[in-house]
């Protein structure tokens, strides 16, 4: 069979997509399709699970299998898919509202369970689809439609949260640093256990406009200046300038995943005559 090109993981007849001019979602979607193409995963063996939101529409543009769930619950649906059909590659696409605000509890427990899913959380620092409301990743003092005089709350560092909860793989990338983002997603997919990739991405329409961050091009430039590679000398000294954030692989371990642990429990139960499937 000839190799699939990355474009063959896209459902091109659905294009143009609904995202705004300069929205980073399309760039992240491209990175995902290139990661899938590099791994040459059969499209029907990949299940992309989404919640609700602008990023949550991504499955509409993919030629893989898909399960479009409800807002905040994509990880719960994905956990069910993986538990029932461990042989499938399950990729979960969530916005920061979806994955870390309404769905934050599912996130920490999926990481604790170390279930073999790959979660790609697109962090655009607000609820894009519903008009730019505050989310759990909106920085303190930032203006949103529900924090018009500035956000009194601090934002989550999602990578540290998921790392502390026990995920095997944690990485952060941006839609400016695309070749790296492709690799981070690819490595997350091949990694057994829970993989978490945070993608920092502009929402020029809401977050950018309200915080006077300029055009999509300006917001992309800001990603370039603010991101610090985790392997750089600056990152090693730990002295990062204000507004800077780390990109790259932030945690990488090989603890047994949920499927392996559950199989061991099943064996034990069978040996005691207490299990029939």
């Amino acid at each position, binding site marked *: 069979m000839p190799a699939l090109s990355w474009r063959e993981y896209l459902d091109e007849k659905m*294009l143009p997509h609904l995202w705004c001019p300069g929205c980073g*979602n399309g760039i992240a979607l491209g990175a995902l399709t290139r990661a899938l193409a590099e791994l040459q995963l059969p499209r029907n063996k990949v299940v992309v699970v989404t919640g609700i939101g602008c990023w949550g529409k991504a499955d509409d543009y993919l030629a893989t299998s898909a399960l479009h769930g409800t807002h905040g619950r994509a990880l719960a649906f994905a956990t069910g898919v993986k538990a029932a059909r461990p042989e499938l590659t399950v990729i979960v696409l969530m916005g920061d509202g979806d994955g870390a605000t309404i769905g934050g509890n599912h996130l920490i427990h999926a990481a604790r369970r170390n279930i073999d899913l790959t979660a790609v959380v697109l962090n655009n620092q607000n609820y894009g689809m519903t008009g730019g409301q505050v989310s759990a990743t909106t920085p303190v003092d930032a203006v949103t439609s529900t924090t018009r005089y500035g956000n009194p709350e601090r934002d989550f560092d999602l990578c540290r949260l998921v790392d502390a909860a026990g995920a095997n793989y944690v990485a952060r990338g941006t839609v400016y640093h695309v070749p790296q983002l492709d690799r981070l997603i690819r490595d997350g997919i091949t990694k057994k256990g829970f993989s978490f990739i945070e993608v920092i991405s502009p929402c020029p329409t809401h977050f950018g406009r309200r915080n006077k961050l300029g*055009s*999509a*091009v300006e917001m992309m430039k800001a990603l370039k200046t603010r991101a610090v590679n985790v392997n750089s000398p600056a990152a090693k000294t730990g002295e990062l300038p204000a507004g800077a954030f780390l990109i790259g692989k932030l945690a990488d371990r090989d603890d047994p995943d949920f499927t392996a642990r559950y199989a061991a429990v099943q064996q034990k139960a069978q040996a005691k005559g207490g299990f029939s499937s």
Partner: protein
Amino acid sequence: MTRININPRRCKHCGICIAFCPKEVFGADYRGAPVVERAEKCTACGLCVMRCPDFALEVGEKGK
């Protein structure tokens, strides 16, 4: 010379390809849409294809 295709039905004039092409291959028309002005400088690095949020660019791929 590398073939560069811009799909006008997909392009939303965000300007990202124009701003970040390392070889400044693109100029802009009056609406901000990219125009290939210096095709001979293109090294087919593919960065514009990867950063275009709208899948509107093809560089050196077999034509459709």
